[in-house]
């Protein structure tokens, strides 16, 4: 981590962050001068991202927040290799991002569990496609199911699970290949408020034991602050990086206990006042 003051948060401009944050492990994700646009129905190009500069260090947890339609998910798709950037460079592990890289894990808002597979079968899916031998993938899937608290439901079908349990299976599936980079696209947004808090904590604890680099797209400011090392705030469309907040709250953190921290609330307010300007601008 970079050194920072004891005041609780450090605010840096986007340009400053990019050039100064080269940690010993090097950057896992490098986004330089990236702009992107989509074709509008009338045939014109509609810019969604403009001049994005961002480097994500090994083991860092970065949250990206911004108003709806600011290009957050496009940014994630660029890093995932699902979309090629029109302008600029996107690198993952020093190379061009490639879809299906077993080093990269994904978690979506919708769990995408296969209803015809049992919980265990779903947890094994990524390992199966990665070509892991049968006994080994079973062992790893069972281990992960246990760590998300679903050891007893291994033989159940997804339809028999609650939304929160389903997302736990998706987490197990994602972590089973031991990815080095995790991409989370609003992974908790489809859950009810209580389940969300529990799952955020579960994920936070699992992540602490993994050391993976995480990119989290979210609408939820408290989620961003309580999970991330840095929060990247984007402007309204076309999305630019407005500001990068360093979250200097001690770990391990719990989403619930953070509620009593004054630093947390100050950061929340600051983030919200900046974000609300963008939301209003839309």
């Amino acid at each position, binding site marked *: 981590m970079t050194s920072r003051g004891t005041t609780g948060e450090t605010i840096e401009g986007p340009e400053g962050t990019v050039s100064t944050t080269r940690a010993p492990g090097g950057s896992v994700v490098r986004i330089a001068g990236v702009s992107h646009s989509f074709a509008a129905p009338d045939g014109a190009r509609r810019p969604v991202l403009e001049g994005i500069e961002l480097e994500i260090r090994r083991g860092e947890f970065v949250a990206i927040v911004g108003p709806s339609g600011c290009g957050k998910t496009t940014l994630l798709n660029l890093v*995932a290799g*699902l979309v090629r950037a029109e302008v600029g460079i996107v690198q993952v592990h020093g190379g061009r991002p490639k*879809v*299906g*890289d*077993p080093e*990269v894990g*994904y978690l*979506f808002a*919708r769990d*995408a569990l*296969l*209803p*015809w*597979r049992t919980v265990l079968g779903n947890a094994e*899916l*990524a390992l*199966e*496609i*990665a070509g892991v031998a049968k006994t080994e993938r079973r062992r790893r899937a069972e281990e992960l199911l246990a*760590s*998300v*608290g679903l050891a*007893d*439901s291994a033989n*159940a*079908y997804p*339809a*028999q*699970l*609650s*939304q*929160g*349990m389903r997302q736990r299976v998706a987490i197990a599936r994602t972590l089973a290949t031991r990815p080095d980079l995790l991409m989370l696209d609003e992974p908790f947004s489809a859950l*009810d408020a*209580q*389940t969300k808090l*529990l*799952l955020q*904590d*579960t994920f936070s*604890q699992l992540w602490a034991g993994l050391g993976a680099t995480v990119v989290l797209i979210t609408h939820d400011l408290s989620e961003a602050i309580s999970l991330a090392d840095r929060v990247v705030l984007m402007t309204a469309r076309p999305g630019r990086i407005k500001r990068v907040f360093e979250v200097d709250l001690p770990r391990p953190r*719990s989403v619930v206990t953070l509620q009593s921290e004054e630093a947390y609330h100050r950061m929340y307010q600051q983030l919200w006042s900046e974000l609300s300007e963008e939301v209003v601008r839309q």
Partner: protein
Amino acid sequence: MTQLEANLEADATVRNDVAVPRRLDKNASGRQRSRGARTSVTVRVIQLALLVALFGSWQLLAATKVLNPAFVSEPSQYFPSFWHGVDGGGLLGLIGTTLYETFVGFALSAILGLAGGYLLAEFKAFDVIIRPFMTGFNSIPRIALAPLFVLWFGLGSLSRIVLIVSLSFFIVAFNTYAGLQGVNRDHLLLSRVLGASRRERFFKFVLPSAAPSIFAGLQLALTYAFLGAVVGEMLTGSDGLGGYLALKMGSFDTTGFFGGLILLVIVALAVSAIVRALENRLLRWRAIELAGTQGGGQ
């Protein structure tokens, strides 16, 4: 980790929104099963009573000449006729012919329909060029073509098999096509990001998701295959149970006709029971999913 355990426990108590714990609990499901068994006994008793009422009133109306027995026969006559037919009267041989035509026709329809549906779903050009022809041909009432098939393929089983394929092929093909097209987009995205090969995508994501639709198509195709065989036989009046029925009707033997009809109903019920058992086995997840949507939850 203790905190993790605590929060897992909390999750378990929070999820009051879903009926999972109940369904996963072995004791509870055992209890439910015994209650299920009791209701199914009640259902069977009621069904039996309805059958008795149906044939009893039929018998009564025919015996009292309210209904003309020459037109409707009577149970006390056609049940023995059915029994004599089965017990050495040649009905079994006739139904054998009908079933042979049904299954050969069905098997051909299934193979060709699965292949056709796959080609439509997988190759855009095939879909664009061929599908309008298929839709067009499928809109012809095929039964009307039966005499043409007899002219082309003779009075034997072959003309019936062709008739069956002309009916059932499209059902299998269109259901397979619809199933393969209806894959969940999230699943396709997942297959992409997990780096699935084309082959893996098809066998691990697309085909299992299409299975319920394909199965529904096969079930319907089998019904139509049976229909095609019997109607085809009635038309030529030469062979199989359909031929027997046509012959009995032609000689105004309603007792013989109903006797044959009983065998037809029994065989059709048996075939559909086998198919249903197969479906429950192969698509257990689907049954659980459908049951789940009724049991509270979201």
